[in-house]
Structure formats: C-alpha cells, structure tokens
C-alpha cells in the first residue's frame, strides 16, 4: 500500500477535532470565470478547514456548480488560484486532483450504470490502490477488493442492495437500475472508497423523498468532522442544521461568509437570498 494511502487514513482519523486554527484544507483565492460577457465566478475566495462542513448556498444560477467545477478541475478558471492541502492545484487535471484527495458527488449521480453497486465500489478501490493495470486477476474473486467494496457500501447503509433474495439467489442489479436515493448513496460510497481528504457534494438532497432525505442528513452529520466537506445545497433547513460555516453566492459573487448564526441574521443575505423565502 502506498504512502499516500497512509497519509489519507491519518487525515481521516484525526478529523474529529476542532481545527479552526489550522491551515485550511482547501483554499480558493480570487477565482474568476467568464463565459463571454457573463461572469459566473467573480473574485471568489473561500476556504475549507480539515473536518469542517462548509456550506455554499445561493439562488439558482448563482454559479455554485461552476465554482465546484473549478475546484475539481472540470472547468478552467480565467483567473485566481486553487490550493489543496498546501499545494497549488489549478493547473492539474481532474484525475490528478482526485488522487490528491478531492472526492466529488454530482447533482445527478454519476455511476457505472452497467456494473453492480459492489463493482462500482470495487472500481473506486481499484483506483485507490492503483491496480487498474492488472490484466489477469479477476476482480470479482479478488477478496481484498470485495472486502473494501463491501465496507464502502456498508458505510452508507447500502449493504442491503446487493443482498441475496429470500430464496437465497443472488441477483446483482446494475447500478443504473437502482432507486434514485440509492444511486446517491452509492456515489457517496464510491467517494469514500478512495479515502479522500475532502468531499465536494453538489445538492445531495435534491430529488430525495422525506425518508431518504432524513437518512442522507444523518449520514452527512456522521461524516462531519472526519472529512472537510464543501456542501452545495438548496435545502436551507438542512444547511443550517449541518454547516459549521456558510457562504452565500449571488450572481457569481460571494456576498457573505461566516457561522450559521451570523448568516441567518445577516441583512444582506436576508434581502438578497433568504428574503425570497421569508
């Protein structure tokens, strides 16, 4: 197992403490992104400390997904810097940033639709242990792989999906046919399997029913403190319940940032954003 994997597990284990004084895990400085005349990211700076759950809220079209895209590397910023674990990463490609510990969940879950949930998690494990160029060993009978995949599924409560039916037969269902909530959980599980330092979650509650929603909130709560999390979410109630810190993005510009209590009472936020609801 590589040195990097050890580093990462250390980061996970030590995540439970309050680290407000520590160096940030992720730091975004003066990021700018334009599409023609439209400025979707306008001098945005923000940071996420280890173990912190930092929520990013804002109306539709505020540029939240674009910001996440620039952090993961799917979009190239026009100006500004992205630092992750003390290293400048804005010139790196998506996979390289991911390998440094950035894991992402998408608004619409992105899965390997034809593979079973277990195999989905196994691919994440293959990615983590860099065994993609093993040409001969069967993935399905690789015990180490199966254990890791199972553990990842269990962690999000997805162990049941792949279980044998009452008659004892095994019907592995392709991930593409899972229920929406399960797809989202599976995507999270795959994020964990790569033992990341940080999770970027793009609206994990969107489209979930009340039961699934509650399960997801409790899962997020359990993750809090162990990973740095940047959470984009529309469900304001959930955000205020979960977040250590909240930043408000309106029209590509960060108009406020701070602890939940401060944001709730911030007059600019109330007029610009929460006002719509109130």
């Amino acid at each position, binding site marked *: 197992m590589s040195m990097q994997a050890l580093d990462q597990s250390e980061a996970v284990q030590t995540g439970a403490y309050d680290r407000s004084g520590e160096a940030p895990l992720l730091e975004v400085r003066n990021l700018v992104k334009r599409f023609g005349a439209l400025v979707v990211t306008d001098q945005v700076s923000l940071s996420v400390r280890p173990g912190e759950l930092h929520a990013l809220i804002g109306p539709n079209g505020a540029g939240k997904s674009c910001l996440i895209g620039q952090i993961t590397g799917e979009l190239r910023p026009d100006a500004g810097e992205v630092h992750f674990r003390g290293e400048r990463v804005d010139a790196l490609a998506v996979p390289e940033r991911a390998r440094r510990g950035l894991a992402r969940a998408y608004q619409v879950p992105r899965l390997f*639709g*034809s593979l079973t949930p277990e195999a989905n998690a196994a691919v994440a494990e293959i990615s983590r242990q860099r065994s993609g160029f093993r040409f001969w060993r069967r993935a399905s009978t690789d015990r180490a792989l199966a254990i890791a995949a199972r553990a990842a599924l269990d962690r999000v409560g997805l162990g049941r999906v792949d279980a044998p039916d009452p008659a004892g037969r095994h019907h592995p269902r*392709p991930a*593409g046919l899972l229920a929406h909530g399960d797809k989202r959980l599976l995507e999270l599980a795959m994020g964990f399997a790569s033992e990341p330092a940080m999770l970027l979650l793009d609206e994990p509650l969107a489209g979930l029913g009340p039961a699934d929603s509650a399960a997801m909130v409790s899962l997020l709560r359990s993750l809090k403190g162990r990973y740095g999390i940047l959470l984009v979410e529309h469900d304001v109630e959930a955000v205020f319940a979960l977040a250590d810190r909240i930043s408000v993005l309106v029209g590509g510009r960060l108009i406020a940032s701070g602890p939940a209590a401060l944001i709730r009472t911030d007059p600019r936020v109330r007029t610009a954003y929460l006002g719509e609801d109130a």
Partner: protein
Amino acid sequence: MHPMVRRSAFAMRVATVPAACPARSAIKASVAAAFTAILVVSTALGVAGTARAQAPASIRLGFIAAMSGPLSVVGAEQKRGFDLALDHLGGKLGGIPFEVIQGDSKANPTATVQELSRLIDKDRVDIITGLSTSNELVAAIKPISDARLFFIGMNGGPAVLAGEQCSPWYFNASFQNGQLTAGMGAYMAKAGVKKLYLMGMDYEAGHEHTEAAKKGFTGEVVAHAFTPIPQVDFAADIARIRASGADGVFAFYPGAPGIAFVRQWNQAGLNGKIALFSNIALSEPTVFQAQGKTALGIVVSANYFAGIDNPRNRRFVQDFRAKFGRDPASYAGLAYDSMMLIDAAVREVKGNIRDQTAFRAALRHANFESVRGPFRFNANQQPIQNTYVTQVDQRPDGSLWLRQLSVAAENAPDEFASRCSMK
C-alpha cells in the same frame, strides 16, 4: 452561418434492454427462428456436403467471374459471351456432355480464393475458366495450380503471371496486359504526336498498360501520371494536360472512371484539339450507352473488337446482337473464345481430360478458330496475337461502333515470356 447545437448523447447500450411490446416480440421470434436456421444450416452444411458423390461421366466446368460488386459489368458481359458459347456448342464440350458450376469472384481476390475452394474442393470441377480482374488472377493461380487443375483465363494478364510466376496450369486466352496496347507507341508517333501525356489509374494494370503505350513512342513523354482508383473527377488532371502543352494523351481508365474521363474530356472542349488514345478498356460497347457521342473519335487499341472480319466472329457478333441488342464487348468475345479453346482441346484428347499431359498439349495447340483472328500460345501459355487500332465511330442509326484503322502489332508475343521458366 449558424453552427447547429446538437444533442451530445453517445449512447452505448448495454445488452440488458428488456423486450417491450408483445407485437414486436412475435416478429422477433420469427427473426430469431430465421437467424437460428441460418446458423444451423451454415454449420450443418459441413456434414451434408460429405455425402456428395462424383459423376465422372461428364465434364464439370467451373465458370467464375465478378457477378456482383462494382466490377460486375465485366462479369455480366463475360457471362453473355459464355452463354452464347454454350448455345453454339449445343450442350457438348468437345463432344462430351458437360455441366457448368458457376462462381462469383465479386471482383475481390480473397472472395475469389474462397469461391475457388468451393468449386475445387466441394463441387469437384475438372476445368476452371473465367475471372475478371488482375488482382483476382494474382490470388487465384496458386490454389488452382495446387489443385492441379487447368485454368483458362478470360480477361487480363498481369506481368508477374506471364513471367516469374507463370504456371503450367494457367492458360491465358485473353491477353497479357501489355498486349492490349502493343504497338500503340509507334502508332501514336506515326499519327503525328510529338508530346505525349500518359495517365492511368494507380494500380498494377494501370502501370502496365501505360508502360506498354510508351514503348516505341519516339516523341517526348511530357508526363506519366496516375490517379487513385476511386477518383472520378478529372478536371484537375485535364487542366494539367492542357498546361503541359501535350498534343496527344494516352489514358487508361476502365469502367466508371473511363466514362467520367471521356465525358469531362469532351466538356473541357478538348475533342479535336488534343488527340486522345487508349486501349479498349476506355471505350467499348458496355460503356457506349453512358458515353454517348462524347466518345466519338477516340482511338483505342484492342486484341478483340466486334468489327474483326472472319466467319467465326461474324456469326458470334450477329447472334450476340440478336440476343442482346448491341455489339459484344471484348469481355464477351474473349469469354466466347475461351470456351471454344476448351472445346477444341477436349475434342483433341477425345474427352480424356484425366490425361493431363495430353490435355495440356492439346490446350497448347489451341486448335480452334478464334473470333479475334490468328491466335496461338507462347511457351509461357500467354497468347501470341494481333493488336488492332480502332476508332469510335457512329452508325447512321446513331449507335457507336469501333472502326478499324490499322494493325498495331501482328502475331506479337508479350514481353515477359523470357522470364518464364516454362519451355
């Protein structure tokens, strides 16, 4: 202009789409049945075929030509000549009853080999004749020789098969590629051409034909150009011809490119300004309909054309016209000749073709009356024959025909005979 925005779904489906509506599945079931049947039949054929008995009482003649695919024009014309020969032979080959097993070479060398395997191994033919293109021949001679069967070629003859790779099993009853054009170089020089522009399709036969046209030409060759096989627009080449200052062009373009070349030559207004020469491949009866009047005046050389004057040919052409409504192309004439050659050889050995030494000797004698006039085989079993110069002309009824201008080469062998080890 508006760049169109498009959906960017590259959907690779996984093979787990469930069957939808019941009406469809009924169709599916029948298609399924059909596919399964094909699967079973195509493999079971292997078992069924073994029971086939042999019938040595009559001769089994294999006839293989390009009956499908882009060059099937040639195969179809060969078949016409072949069929007319069957009529004239009255169901007997050298006095012996015979059976024809037909194959389709598809103008594709590998398909040719496969089809030959069917004729040789499964249908157990005694003699094979046909083939339409040079590349088919290159691929075909080896398996035929290995099977120790005689093959009588009906069209074309690449240099390698006349020279280094000549085979005692291969008799070319048509022409070695260079023979179609033998003597044309001297003829063009005599006709007053000072600067000659040579061009042809970029494949082996194209090189051989244009190379042959160069022989004996005393003037200046200003260019020797080749165009890719699929090219059908010759505007750029015609421009270069004009710019080269050539006063004569020799162009080798069989089939569709030939039609295109002649039409475009005409449209560029070069008819009558620059003399256009070729061999029979460029302008012959199968393309007369498509070339129409644009072909008038083109001078082509040939080892066979409908206007050759001898009793055998008069009968052949007359019956061909009666049956198909136009003059035979050389493909038909040479196919007819091949059959007559086989007929004569079988007659000479009194049907005992199993005596291969005698049968080979009989084939070499070529004791038949050819529609093309004088014909005999050289030591390499390629023809020794005349090459005629003809010009596309018009009859009073508007139809085109080839008028003989002169004889370019008389009783001439091919140039590669000395490279062949056969004596």
